[in-house]
């Protein structure tokens, strides 16, 4: 079984991103970039399927400019077999990413596509579901457990009230939630080996996709600042403030 994993290059999760003073965009100068944490979980899941003998090949794909090859190499160091970059001028919208991934799915015919549930930059939570609709594939989003059973995959999902399990006919889409697994660290020998693994580059035109724009960012601004309040001395003072000043209890 072939598994396709999508990875995205994003600002490292430790970075506190700010809006530029003129409000034109976020300030990403000299900011540390990394693989999106949910995508890392997706790679780990795919590699575990290979180690368990369920998957035969793991392909890591990313959409973006040349810099995203760094994240593809990270996925290869974690255990993916080969990489695909779909070259675009910087970021494109989730709908376009989904169309490009559909093009890759048609080329590679994977039985399972694993993606992160959302990227921590745009916080959109869309791409996996959109790919599912475009490719006519079922989806197990926000997955905390993935079990392959013949031509079916059972996915346990994190939902509002608890957990839900669905059975999906392969080929299927899985998007990862936090508790699916704990990703490994890449070892130095594997990082060296990853540099030699194959990495193909396609353009949107190669995949028959037109890059369109549906949303334009008008401006960005910092959120309303919350002022730090006071420190109370003890529990009595805290209760007094909550009762008599804030009037919330």
């Amino acid at each position, binding site marked *: 079984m072939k598994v396709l994993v999508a990875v995205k290059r994003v600002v490292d999760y430790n970075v506190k991103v700010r809006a530029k003073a003129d409000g034109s965009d976020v300030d990403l100068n000299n900011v540390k970039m990394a693989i999106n944490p949910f995508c890392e979980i997706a790679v780990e899941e795919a590699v575990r399927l290979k180690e368990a003998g369920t998957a035969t090949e793991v392909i890591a794909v990313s959409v973006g400019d040349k810099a995203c090859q760094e994240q593809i190499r990270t996925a290869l160091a974690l255990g993916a077999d080969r990489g695909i970059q779909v070259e675009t001028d910087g970021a494109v919208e989730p709908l376009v990413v989904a169309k490009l991934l559909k093009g890759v799915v048609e080329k590679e015919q994977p039985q399972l596509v694993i993606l992160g549930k959302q990227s921590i930059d745009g916080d959109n939570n869309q791409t996996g579901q959109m790919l599912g609709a475009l490719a006519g594939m079922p989806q197990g989003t926000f997955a905390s457990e993935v079990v392959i059973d013949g031509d079916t995959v059972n996915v346990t999902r994190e939902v509002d009230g608890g957990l839900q399990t669905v059975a999906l006919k392969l080929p299927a889409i899985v998007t990862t939630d*936090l508790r699916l697994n704990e990703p490994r660290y890449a070892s130095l020998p594997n990082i060296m080996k990853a540099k030699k693994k194959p990495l193909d580059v396609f353009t949107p035109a190669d995949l028959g996709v037109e890059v369109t724009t549906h949303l334009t960012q008008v401006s960005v601004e910092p959120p309303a600042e919350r002022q730090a309040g006071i420190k*109370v001395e003890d529990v009595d003072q805290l209760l007094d403030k909550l009762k008599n000043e804030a009037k919330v209890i």
Partner: protein
Amino acid sequence: MSTLVIAEHDNATLKGATLNAVTAAQALGADIDILVAGAGCDAAAQAAAAVAGVNKVLVADNAPYEHQLAENVSLLIAEVGAGYDYIVAAATANAKNTMPRVAALLDVAQISEITSVESPDTFKRPIYAGNVIATVKSTDAKKVITVRGTAFDAAAAEGGSASIEAVDSAHDAGISSFVGEEVAVSDRPELTAASVVISGGRGMQNGENFKLLEGIADKLNAAIGASRAAVDAGFVPNDMQVGQTGKIVAPDLYIAVGISGAIQHLAGMKDSKVIVAINKDEDAPIFQVSDYGLVADLFDALPEFESKL
């Protein structure tokens, strides 16, 4: 101009999140219809018809929609939604699952988790864990939107008298099926609807210690939440997680206990009206957003707080 609001419900009851979505829909300025897709969902449809400001309730009562499987429901919404300018839903786990499929079927963008309507085509939404608020303009003729519930007041659940119309359309994609669910049963209010939330973090040390929060939660009729650190450490289940990738809450009172205040956690609670932080580290970032900070060992402070409430 017309707007289709997708109801969040469990067939028997209409969920409160739907009311926040209706308020967001009102800000769009178009006539509002509600779609209730489910099986045996007549009670939910009746409740939707009573919501103030709603024109018409469309009910698709069919077996393939019973468990809100995205593969089936998205086909229905795309079909029914074809006649509307806006398709709007509260950003619940169900809508997050289904609505992007709807958008892709209609070949339009989804505008996720809007927090305000600036004009009929321009919206604000948080990005980067809420560290930045983006204003975005949609150029699609039809707009698929999810709404952050905490940013919009609930519409009145009573006072409306919408007509109810059946939609006779049973889409079964035949590629997915419901196996089962484990839903936490609790007498406490839902996290996203509670007026008081008390959350524990890594400082709680283990799941057993969350009992210290329960007594206080009982007295305040509060929901209990947790930081990602507490979930990752296995103290409590993920559906209790408050934060960027968990639940977004904005209660009247939020009590953060043993939570340092990582930006990912703040993203989920900083719009709360009053924030209390209890932490023994006086330099913890949570104190920068709290109205009342108590530097104390939570194992001393919590029992005292509970006994004096």
